[in-house]
């Protein structure tokens, strides 16, 4: 255990003392989050969106009422009441109506909801009114987990893989090889060190920007922490696998970029994949970042528990174990000529 802590301690010191890299770890995500909160601060949606409960869209057309012929209105059908009400809470739809039971839900804080409600009560005066008061989900609420996740991904992939390849190239690993230190002790110390660093940096950025931007967080922070730890572990393990043999920083850097770019674009960092083609969606499933972000967003914006995201958690756990096993099997200390 002494050996493990010696390496852990040394790696943590190295990270903390590399001031430029340390600062960048904080500055980069904060810049992005605040940048996005200013760039996309107003909702430019031009349609009025009305949710319809328990009625398919074809059946709506059979209802003979001018309300349903209004221009610039879009109707969306829902079967699950609580899901649909959450959409009203979050201003994703302006109003929810149940024609069968003659009731509707409106968010009292929504200006668009007020307009749609006025029109609705004009055509259907005796519908029951239910009121919600949730705050609108801004784009920044949605994109913030993506940016933090992306920052975690870069930190895990490059902070572990690149460093190990550099150690191998300049002979730090070879020096360790000539001591009783085992590969397992060395690798586990690298993982734990990076996990602590990533979770610490992410938590600080998370709470710091939450203080200023007041993010939309419905679910439990503890569950979010578990998702973050599992996601980070799987990405660190992935990075170890890439760094298990190579002594070329160019090659490893290329490989890490080759992995991080598709993840940045396809894992739902910047935009939702809901409307994307099925092929793209299934490709995205091979990336750990996709599972981490889907789980984190479900917890934050839908307020679900761990059970609801267990599928993602299991995938992340399996990825972690498989990558770790493969990387410790393939690991080489030195750049032995063959």
């Amino acid at each position: 255990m002494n050996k493990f802590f010696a390496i852990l301690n040394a790696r943590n010191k190295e990270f903390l003392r590399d001031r430029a890299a340390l600062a960048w770890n904080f500055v980069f995500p904060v810049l992005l989050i605040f940048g996005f909160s200013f760039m996309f601060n107003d909702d430019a949606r031009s349609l009025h969106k009305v949710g319809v409960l328990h009625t398919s869209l074809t059946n709506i057309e059979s209802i003979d009422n001018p309300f349903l012929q209004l221009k610039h209105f879009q109707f969306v059908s829902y079967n699950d009441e609580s899901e649909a009400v959450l959409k009203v809470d979050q201003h994703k739809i302006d109003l929810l109506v149940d024609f069968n039971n003659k009731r509707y839900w409106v968010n009292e804080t929504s200006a668009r909801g007020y307009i749609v409600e006025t029109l609705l009560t004009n055509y259907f005066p005796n519908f029951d009114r239910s009121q919600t008061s949730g705050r609108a989900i801004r784009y920044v609420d949605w994109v913030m987990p993506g940016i933090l996740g992306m920052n975690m991904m870069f930190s895990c992939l490059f902070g572990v893989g690149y460093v190990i390849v550099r150690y191998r190239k300049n002979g730090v690993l070879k020096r360790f090889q000539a001591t009783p230190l085992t590969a397992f002790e060395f690798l586990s110390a690298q993982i734990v060190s990076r996990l602590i660093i990533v979770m610490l940096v992410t938590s600080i950025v998370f709470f710091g920007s939450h203080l200023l931007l007041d993010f939309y967080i419905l679910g439990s922070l503890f569950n979010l922490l578990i998702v973050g730890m599992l996601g980070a572990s799987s990405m660190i393990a992935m990075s170890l696998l890439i760094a298990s043999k190579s002594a070329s920083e160019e090659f490893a850097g290329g490989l890490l970029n080759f992995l991080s770019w598709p993840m940045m674009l396809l894992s739902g960092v910047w935009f939702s994949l809901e409307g994307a083609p099925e092929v793209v969606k299934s490709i995205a499933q091979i990336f750990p970042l996709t599972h981490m972000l889907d789980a984190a967003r479900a917890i934050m914006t839908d307020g679900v528990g761990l059970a609801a995201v267990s599928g993602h958690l299991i995938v992340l756990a399996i990825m972690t174990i498989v990558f770790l096993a493969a990387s410790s099997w393939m690991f080489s200390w030195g750049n032995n000529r063959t």
Partner: protein
Amino acid sequence: MADILQIKNLSKRYAKTVAVDDISFNVKQGQCFGLLGPNGAGKTTTIEMMEGILPPSSGEILFEGKPIDKNYYQRVGIQFQHTAIQDFLTVKETLSMFANFYKQSLSSAQLIEMCALQEIVDRDTRKLSGGQRQRLLLALAMLNDPKIIFLDEPTTGLDPQSRRNFWQLIDNIKRQNKTVLLTTHYMDEAESLCDEIVIMDTGKIIQRGTPNTLLKDHFDGVLVTLPISIEPKLKSMQLDYLRNNQVVEIMSANVDQTIRTLLENEVPLEGMQVRSPNLEDLFIKLTGHQLRG
């Protein structure tokens, strides 16, 4: 004295080259053993196989009569030719990190004293000079109080002053009855430090013995050195000589007689030097080429 290391029919073959070609030798407990040879002779490959870092293609290495196992690293100390140390740590922190790897280790104070690190204990390892760096690496190799210490070209690239200081440190280590295994391409280093040497060239051992016996066996007397401009004259005299850079060297068992012969043939003696042969001369004689080429 008992053999601490036995090397039996050791070879290392790569796809296109044979780096080490069936070599055998023993290293005695407590001696300073030198592996000499030019760049590319196979010294580093040999020492890295002995360190357990590089797997041999064939052959056997026995430490105290047994094959190398994972316990080996508790008992040996190693200084590589090219080693980086983790960045952003001080000398003292580096020592204490490595100390944690071993069951037993010398105290920091002992190591700092032994390797003359007093002035740099709190310095970042990135800011060390070449000599300071080699002293720290020596301290890391000595940290577990090893029975045998491997030094792969420890003074390459150091200035003459630092080299001599480093030799002093190795001398002190030898006095503690530790076995030292050293590779070098500096012949003066081997003459000053080694009790026994092996000279390697293109993967093979071409000569072994103590520096003195090797010189006695191959040289009879002293070397008379003259400028190369007199070479045509020597040719006509049919006198045996060696060409070495810009000088010619005549092997002479009797200096008086040699000088008389030269004068009789009207060879100008300007720039003449008389010196004892060293390992460098031996190497040139054995291989026909210079050590550092």
